[in-house]
């Protein structure tokens, strides 16, 4: 297949076009700093959701600790740019590599577990990472890491998001990606077909962590300030909610889900006291009326198999 066929060229033009138009609007001040702040949050959420979708949606590994990889990336970038005065690209690369390394270290032992047990183990690891962060003086402990330079610009944000989406959707279409999808569909069948399940599960986990690290770097270098508490259990749940809301195993869904949920929470800021109550009701209604998410594929086994909640132990 030619690299510059009609479809690829058109989508490349569309990507560059959106970049140029939004960049123009920001430069002319049409998009003010408040809207831009929300655009940054949406971008970070897209990276997080797409990368978690690779782990949970496609490979079927139920992770409740994605925020931990984001925090590792954020702190790595914070240390590299604020304490060691490195340029931003070093910060992003360092963040991604550190998070990916953590992904390997956490993934190899825990990915032997399945379903709910894996979810609990990843949750446990995320809490441990948070507690270590709270008690490490070098990175500010509970008071947080301050004075991180603001390097995250529209250009960095946009190309990081585009690169994440492009790389993960191409990975899914590759030989290795198909092995991951096979594991997500049925692990035993995949193993019987000769897929090295451990290798591909760790690979998906590491790749997901890698991109979550990038999201962390963008976050650190936009908000000046990091606190271990902001990467707790609730953050992991927020990311998971985006993935499920958008549709498991749908990259488009994750992008739309990230945008929609960010806009919803933006509107809810008008009623600070009832914000979380309304959010929980929305969450509940989505799960009852559209559990497969907005772009969920009904063809995936994850959704087709009814009565999974009651099925015997080892299911998903």
């Amino acid at each position: 297949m030619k690299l510059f066929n009609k479809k690829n060229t058109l989508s490349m033009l569309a990507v560059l076009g959106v970049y140029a138009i939004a960049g123009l609007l920001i430069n002319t001040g049409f998009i003010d700093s408040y809207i831009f702040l929300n655009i940054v949050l949406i971008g970070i959420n897209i990276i997080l959701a797409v990368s978690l979708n690779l782990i949970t949606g496609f490979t079927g590994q139920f992770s409740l600790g994605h925020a931990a990889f984001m925090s590792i990336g954020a702190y790595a970038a914070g240390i590299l740019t604020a304490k060691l005065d490195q340029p931003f690209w070093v910060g992003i690369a360092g963040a991604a590599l550190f998070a990916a390394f953590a992904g390997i270290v956490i993934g190899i032992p825990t990915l032997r577990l399945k379903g709910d047990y894996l979810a609990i183990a990843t949750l446990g690891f995320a809490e441990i990472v948070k507690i270590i962060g709270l008690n490490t003086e070098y990175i500010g402990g509970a008071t947080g890491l301050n004075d991180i330079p603001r390097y995250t610009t529209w250009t960095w944000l946009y190309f990081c998001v585009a690169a994440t989406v492009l790389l993960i959707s191409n990975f899914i279409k590759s030989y290795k990606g198909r092995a991951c999808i096979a594991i997500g569909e049925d692990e035993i069948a995949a193993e019987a077909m000769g897929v090295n399940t451990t290798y591909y599960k760790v690979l998906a986990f590491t790749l997901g962590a890698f991109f979550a690290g990038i999201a962390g770097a963008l976050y650190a270098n936009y908000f000046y300030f990091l606190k271990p508490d902001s990467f707790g259990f609730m953050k992991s749940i927020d990311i998971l909610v985006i993935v499920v809301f958008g549709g498991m195993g749908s990259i488009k869904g994750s992008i739309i889900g990230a945008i929609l949920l960010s806009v919803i929470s933006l509107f809810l800021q008008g009623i600070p006291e009832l914000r979380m109550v309304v959010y929980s009701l929305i969450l509940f209604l989505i799960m009852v009326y559209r559990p497969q998410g907005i772009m969920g594929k009904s063809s995936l086994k994850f959704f087709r198999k009814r009565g999974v909640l009651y099925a015997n132990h080892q299911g998903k």
Partner: protein
Amino acid sequence: MEQLTQQFVNGVSLGSIYALIALGYTMVYGIIKLINFAHGDIYMIGAYIGFALTSFLHVGFFPALIISMLLCALLGVLIEKVAYKPVRNSTRIAALITAISVSLFLEYGMMYFVKAETRTFPELLPNKQISILNTSAVLDIKNIYIIFVTISLMLVLQYTIYKTKVGKSMRAVSLDRDAAQLMGIDMNKTISYTFAIGSALAGAAGVLVGTYYNSINPLMGVVPGLKAFVAAVIGGIGVIPGAVLGGFFLGMTETMVSAFGGSLYKDAVAFAILILVLLAKPNGLLGRNIKEKV
């Protein structure tokens, strides 16, 4: 040695609270395979009911405990009927997110009504301390109450599960749902009973914690909820003696870690133990090993 005895007493008290909450997690998981994240919040609401009864209506300790347990049981059944029944046939992940949404709803709904500030629980039990074996280690009367209440509730639970018809149907459903239904067991009723019993135990734990630590707030259920859940998993989720063992084990470890200078890391230690146990015995300490069928 004295410090060790003292910490042992504290550890047993904390452990019995964890065990009471963990029992509810384990029973619900055993029946519908759902991690009921709202369970920790039922415990919080139990504490608030106890607080309202004792400070506004001036009810004594035991009546408050029993009323709180009954109301929590009702709340548990209500949550199951309203929130979990519609997603019973959905995927695991949808059910889990529903549970989280219920948990958020209870936490922040409660915060809206009772405000976020910490409240002081009235002194219900006599403030008497007994020295253990003439050493300087003391046994607070509250410790005795906690341990006594916990053990009696566990005995009642044991009786309900192994000697009554409700218990028998609960065991049958958790063993094989379809076969149980074929034998004429009413699924909905059994699930409701499970939620009622589990939530009543959480409510009791809430009142006990209120009287022991004297302070309650709307988010008090989050961390003990997670810890109790960890305890249930350590013991083997779905296994009732496992929840008790896991609860006491976690309570003891946590008190010992704090006593020997690691109080900042006590939560991390709990999770580290969880991961080690899961890696060595993926079904928990007392969990049955289930063969995977293709």
